């Protein structure tokens, strides 16, 4: 049941696929931040059309399983004439899914900004767009940085689903080894440990950031 050979295989597979997992996490994190920023802007400053679009986006993303979203996107993009490698489709799907949660996080961050700042910005003659881009959004992101990092670690935990559309990340690499060696404990234990380790690295980063930002929040 336990063999040193399989363990070695697993560790070397982990060494090469951990980059895929991290790439998925980072890529999806960036997509999530962009989608969340656009969505929260539409929600708070886009009139009733923007509000409706943003609400619909959040509701659909939170109301359907990520697995289904992955498949809809990866079959839907080619229909639109867009051919992308599976890893890019996975980054897009996971990122757009997470963007719904980022919308809510950023909304909290925007609402925490003192109204006086926006009045002051209007006073000195900044345009609506400039106020949003220079005053509101940067502070909203700073306000919610710890929450955003926590969202990052949730993205990390979604990445194994990319294997559904044939991206070989850490978990799927384990499945492949398991299928060949019929050994399981020495395959899945190191992989599980790797996720927990990366997860807590992110968590510690979030806690550290929270402490760094505490004085600024006053």
């Amino acid at each position, binding site marked *: 049941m336990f063999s040193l050979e399989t363990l070695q295989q697993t560790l070397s597979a982990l060494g090469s696929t951990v980059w895929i997992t991290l790439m998925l996490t980072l890529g999806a994190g960036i997509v999530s931040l962009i989608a969340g920023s656009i969505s929260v802007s539409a929600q708070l400053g886009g009139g009733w059309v923007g509000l409706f679009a943003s609400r619909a986006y959040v509701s659909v993303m939170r109301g359907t399983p990520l697995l*289904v979203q992955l498949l*809809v996107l990866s*079959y839907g993009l080619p229909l639109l004439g867009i051919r992308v490698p599976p890893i890019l489709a996975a980054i897009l799907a996971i990122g757009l899914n997470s963007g719904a949660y980022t919308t809510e996080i950023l909304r909290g961050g925007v609402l925490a900004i003192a109204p006086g700042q926006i009045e002051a910005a209007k006073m000195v003659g900044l345009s609506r767009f400039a106020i949003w881009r220079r005053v509101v959004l940067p502070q909203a992101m700073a306000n919610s940085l710890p929450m955003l990092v926590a969202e990052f670690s949730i993205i990390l*935990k979604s990445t194994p689903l990319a294997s559904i559309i044939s991206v070989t990340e850490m978990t799927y690499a384990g499945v492949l080894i398991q299928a060949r060696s019929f050994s399981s404990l020495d395959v899945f*234990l190191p*992989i599980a440990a790797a*996720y927990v380790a990366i997860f807590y690295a992110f968590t510690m980063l979030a806690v550290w950031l929270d402490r760094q930002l505490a004085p600024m929040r006053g």
Partner: protein
Amino acid sequence: MDFAVLVPYLPQLALGLGRTTLIAAFAIATSLAAAALLTWGRMRGSAAIRRTIKVYTQLVLGLPILTLLYVVYFVLPSAGIRIDAFWAGILTLTLYYSPYMAEAVRGAILSIPHGQLQAGRMVGLAEGTILWRIVLPQAAGVALPALAGIAIGLTKDTAILSVISVQEFAYATKQVVSRTYAPFETWLAVAAAYWVLLSILDLGVRTLERRVNYYRPVRGVGR
């Protein structure tokens, strides 16, 4: 796009949706039961039990559910425990979601002011009566929004069980796709069905929330 190809397969898809609903309901029940045990152990157990539960909670928080599913499905049989896909799925959902639920319940119980317990003891109520008549009814209202979010997450994650061939909605969809050769239309329609199912669940929970929190003077507490 032609959704008409799906018409002959609607009964099959409906059956899958029904199974997903049952699996989710069953797993929510087992997770709540396990969460009650975890909460009890965390608040009343010995130091060793409290420590074990704490470590277990932190491990699960850091683990992707798909990875946990493979651990349960592949590692248990290698330890001589035979388990079929359905039970592996229920076990995984329970192992994964019960610590989240337990944290929500524990937080809610701790939010009940201590003075209420003291007052209960003063007027001579038994410890059990204080728990069941004073603490839990209020804690239920506090915990409900968090528990509802977790239950909705659990329901969405039942789709992941299709990778180990549990016969639920996503699995039925895969079978239909292999007949219709229309993956996009099929998955899009299925996404809509999931959305309706989860929206109904969400609406139901909000109604329940209002009923459980009826005694609160402030409107709009919760979500």
